[in-house]
């Protein structure tokens, strides 16, 4: 490669690199600055050193919200794994020539608008929704027969629906990369299906599982629209709390919440990036 060409390729990095520095890195420094600020009487940030904003995050008033957010995100991620792994396994092993088609079918609903997908559950399971209509028609007692909206189940179910493809895709990719003769070898060595799964298939696909857990867990923890549409005051998540602060609340507190959320998410991200980097280095 000529020197001139290398210079050209270096230049290619510049526009997007600068864009990300200006619009991704720089904004974070402002969030950090605001998280330590107070406000003037118009609600505009006055910069300074006010770590109280962070103390407020761990105020007993808000602890339930933090715990609930974590619990919802963990539950949604676990459910996605329980549902997603068998589906990915099924498609990768037994999908045959329909594999690509089935994977497209898994992704396709995700491309329906995010809000519409959440709202759809309102249509199906709302108090005036389809299921309650059917149950009422067959004579189930109660008005409505089933209450789903405003319960934790609604929010967790909505989160699972939002992010399930993100769990299935990386697990599928890992299963597809895996040599199927490995499971046969496991069976030839008199392993039971469970043993074969635990000692052969699972270790070979754990990378995909980690990727899926992060890809579902990160957005689930930061989500606010699902809890807002399918939930109520009892299902408030940290995303709702943040959103409120930037609506009519106190911006510095909102910024501090955002930084705390980001810190938790960063731990997950570092974990993911390190585990993603390992096989790349091994194959290089």
């Amino acid at each position, binding site marked *: 490669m000529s020197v001139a060409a290398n210079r050209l390729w270096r230049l290619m990095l510049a526009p997007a690199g600068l864009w990300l520095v200006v619009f991704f890195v720089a904004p974070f420094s402002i969030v950090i600055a605001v998280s330590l600020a107070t406000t003037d009487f118009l609600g505009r940030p006055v910069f300074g050193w006010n770590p109280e904003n962070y103390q407020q995050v761990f105020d007993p008033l808000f602890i339930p919200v933090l715990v609930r957010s974590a619990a919802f995100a963990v539950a949604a991620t676990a459910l996605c794994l329980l549902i997603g792994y068998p589906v990915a396994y099924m498609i990768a092993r037994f999908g045959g020539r329909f594999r690509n088609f089935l994977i497209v079918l898994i992704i396709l609903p995700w491309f329906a608008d995010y809000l*519409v997908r959440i709202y759809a559950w309102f249509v199906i399971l709302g108090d005036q929704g389809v299921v309650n209509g059917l149950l009422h028609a067959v004579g189930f007692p109660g008005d409505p027969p089933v209450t789903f909206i405003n319960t934790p189940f609604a929010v967790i179910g909505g989160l699972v629906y939002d992010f399930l493809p993100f769990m299935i895709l990386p697990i599928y990719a890992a299963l597809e990369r895996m040599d199927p003769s490995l499971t046969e070898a496991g069976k030839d060595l008199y392993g039971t299906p469970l043993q074969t799964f635990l000692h052969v298939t699972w270790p070979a696909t754990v990378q995909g599982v980690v990727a899926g857990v992060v890809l579902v867990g990160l957005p689930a923890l930061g989500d606010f*629209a699902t809890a807002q549409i399918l939930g109520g005051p009892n299902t408030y998540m940290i995303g709702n709390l943040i959103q409120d602060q930037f609506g009519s609340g106190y911006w510095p507190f909102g910024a501090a919440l955002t930084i705390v959320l980001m810190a938790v998410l960063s731990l997950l991200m570092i974990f993911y990036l390190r585990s993603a980097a390992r096989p790349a280095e091994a194959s290089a």
Partner: protein
Amino acid sequence: MSGQAAVVDQATPEPLAPMSHQKVVVRRAVAARKFDQPRFLYVFTALVFVYLFAPILVVFWFSFNSRKSLQVFGSFSLTWYGKLLEDSNIISSLVASVEIAFVTMVVATVLGTMLAFGLVRARWWANRPTGTLMLLNLVTPEIVTGIAFLLVFSQLGLTLSLGTVIIGHITFSIAYVTIIVRGRLAAINREVEEAAQDLGANDLQAVRLVTLPLLWPAIIASGMLVFVMSFDDFVTSFFTTGIGVQPLPLRIYSMIRFGVTPEINAVGSLMMVITIVIVLAALFVYARQQRARLAFLAE
């Protein structure tokens, strides 16, 4: 494997063979059958597909309901679509969303493609940090970047408008383009470019005449993907939109907050059709080239 298991299974429906050797075979065959023909898995996967598609289809179905109810389907009608056309707010939001998505697509595709070239081909210390930055951007939840945008724009004194929405959308879109194009670029054999250079092309000509034509499907597919993601985006738009015309997802959001109306079913179905058609087109473009490549390799 599964065929073999099935044969053994048919031949010995009951494990009555006295010889220990045969016993082992039978036991393994039964175990293998469970493993290789998991009827449970088929049913489970089918149920998951129902779960994935039912909500969308229900919304679509009820968008054609002549009645306002979500429980009783009256007769087939386009009433709610007619209502949409009369609603000037929704029309202007639709136009705004298309504009935002189009500008985002063009800018993000150019920036992302350049970044892919840089990351694959430049020999430089900046490659690694830029690549990491792109990945971080990709995995950072939108609520965090959305708030970062809100604070930056307000500190800079920028009025929130469609322009600020576009800046937000371009930022989250670049990484998707780069990842798709980079994958394809890394797969292209450098020798075809070297062959062009042997035939007298300079560096730029080799890229323009040889590499870019091979990359076009990946670039177009990623551009379509960006269009759809921008068109559907809610969270980033939520924090970067000012007063005035709102992108369509925000319009839907305020409609939902006012309560369930059949109009939402109609506008939601319309968005679904638009995005799914674009996504399928992108897949088609991408898959056709892959098939062409396979055919070329087979020759």
